[in-house]
């Protein structure tokens, strides 16, 4: 799993490439925390390059959501593929987080 970040007006985008599983989850959680701490309160997690996610990976997203909210910001997810959407719906997490089609849609009107 590779992570990279980029700036958008009003938001920081975290790009996740590869398999977001139990091995990658702690690193993502760490990265999201440090992003929030360095002032990026609005975070978009870009899952366009993510070809697999498990419950631990989603757990890291929930952890990130908590960090952002506590800092007065928010977290959104974008670009989820079919496997990711399936897991989101299996765990009901789509009842909490809306999967935006892409980063542009996620930051639109935020």
């Amino acid at each position, binding site marked *: 799993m590779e992570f990279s970040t980029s700036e958008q007006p009003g938001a920081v985008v975290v790009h996740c490439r590869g398999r977001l599983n*139990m*091995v990658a*989850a*702690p690193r993502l*959680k760490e990265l999201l925390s440090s992003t929030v701490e360095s002032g990026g309160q609005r975070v978009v997690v870009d899952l366009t390059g993510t070809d697999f996610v*498990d*419950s*631990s990976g*989603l*757990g890291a997203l*929930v*952890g990130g*959501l*908590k*960090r*952002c*909210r*506590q800092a007065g910001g*928010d*977290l*959104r997810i974008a670009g989820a593929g079919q496997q990711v959407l399936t897991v989101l719906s*299996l*765990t*009901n*997490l*789509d*009842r*909490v*987080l*809306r999967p935006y089609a892409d980063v542009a849609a996620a930051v639109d009107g935020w």
Partner: protein
Amino acid sequence: MRLALIRVLVTLTLLAGTVYVSWRWLFSVNWEYWWIAVPLVLAETYTLVDAVLFGLTVWRLKRRGEPPPPPEDATVDVFITTYDEPVEMVTATAVAALDIRHPHRTWVLDDGDRPEMRAAAERLGVGYLTRSEDWRDRPRHAKAGNLNNALFQTEGEFLLILDADQIPDPAILDRTLGYFRDPRVALVQTPQWFTNVTESDPLGSQAPLFYGPIQQGKDGWNAAFFCGSNAVLRREALMQLGLVGYVRETHQAVQQALATASRLVARTLRRARRDGDPAGEVLVDVQQAVAGARRALAGGEPLAEVTGAFQRRLRELSRELVGADLQAIQADLGEIAELGMEQDQETGLVVVDEAALDRLAEREWSPLGAIASVAELLRSVDVDRGDEAQPMMPMATVSVTEDMATCMRLHGLGWRSVYHHEVLAHGLAPEDLRTMLQQRLRWSQGTLQVLLRENPLVQRGLTWGQRLMYLATMWSYLSGFAAVVFLVAPVLYLCFGVLPVEAFGLQFLSFFIPYMVLNQLLFAVVGYGVRTWRGHQYSLALFPLWIRACVTAAANVWFGRPLGFVVTPKTGVRGRQPFPWRLVLPQLVAVTALVVACVVGVVRLWTGAASSTIGTAVNVAWVAYDLLVMSVIFQAARYRAPGRDEELVS
């Protein structure tokens, strides 16, 4: 072959039992003494239901034989949970854990956060985990919280969970991981076996009936229980459980919070208008925002979207109000700080009870105070779970025995569990009566909490077999009430001639004896080669404890009372101690009454005050059985465990 015999005996026992109990209800209740006759027939019905559930359990007794080899490349974290056990004990377990053959990482989960434990872990080269900063001033959820904390700091695919005293066999992973080749398997449980127990085991620590036929029977129904230690779990299953629970609980809490907010705002608005406070008008907008959020939620909008938009709107609105009555705001802010929702003392569950929310809604707020308290209320239950250390709690926290609740939820999500019948860890049992009673009390309270909070009979996703397997264990913890009746009835008959049954004649015996004999035979066959007698004894002899567990668990779940629960010490108290009269007082009273009743009964028969020889004989035999069963508690009270310091060193 043995299974066929068991099934025949189950069928016969239940037939004989049904005939007997039907005859009791329909033809032999002595209504003249209904106040003891009805409790007695109820107690007998309770026992028959217990027998039905036991029969169902062993009907599908499953022997799994040799386990498959572990999946290739399985990664494993070994968790050793500790709170206040001696460092040497944990160290001994950690040393043994390092020797487990299958590749793994070993972690000590020290909830006591002890520097000497940390130093010992570092010396051994095992991982050391304590609660993160997030847990400060938040509910700790005991062992479940300790495990939940560790789950988010580790990354193994499977987790072996060991209590601080459970010394694992080097083969424990090689013998259990193979079952996870089936991707639906979430749990493999192995037995608990204790080394510091004498041959006669007066405290009844070994549970060979449970870690044997009962677990094997439950396994047959895909309902093998998780027992908190000596078990391997699949991380993915736990995480999924955590996510599903997080979504469900947050949804409910936000819905409730919005309903309260709606009432609170309406009330404050009415008051502001009555007092002619112009600042109140902003509350009309707040009201609209609350209504909009509730509509969006009902319409299936994702929660984070709804609450995010709602909180932003609240911030805008409160900005409009700045400059309003500062004093009133100050007073309210003080109040809001106190708003932290009430929590259950042991489980730390947020008690979002009606009363607390009512108090909140009824308080007189200033307009800005109303907005701030709505915002605070929402924040404490919102998607970030401000009220909890971490948003996801994979290990269930509804009960002080997290294992059973977690397992039931896993089964509810469609995961499978396995019972592997091979002792692969050796532990330490309580060493005196007091410690043993504390442990039993905690188990029974925890089990009953699960029954009252998440009744298995109505849980979605469970098969009927699974529901009945959970009920069977919970049902057995209600035995205290029946035990009292079984102790009192013969005393009443022998002393006062109070006859609960129409007649203790031959007809009674002809119905009762086949049932009793078949029942004993069934136990003998099911429990062949293991000692089931201690378990029988304690289900009657600990009647005060079982009743206390029922009463305290109900008071806790329904009225939020504390359980009076203590962490079970793993080390006994050493040295000579006086006989613990107070611990066994109810049993002492019962035994005295039984003995006196026997003497009185024989005298009454001799003097002609009582006329039925069979009646007296049946009741004297009954009393003799009660006394034999109860005797265990006095052996237990005198018992001191053999020294085991040498074992720890070796």
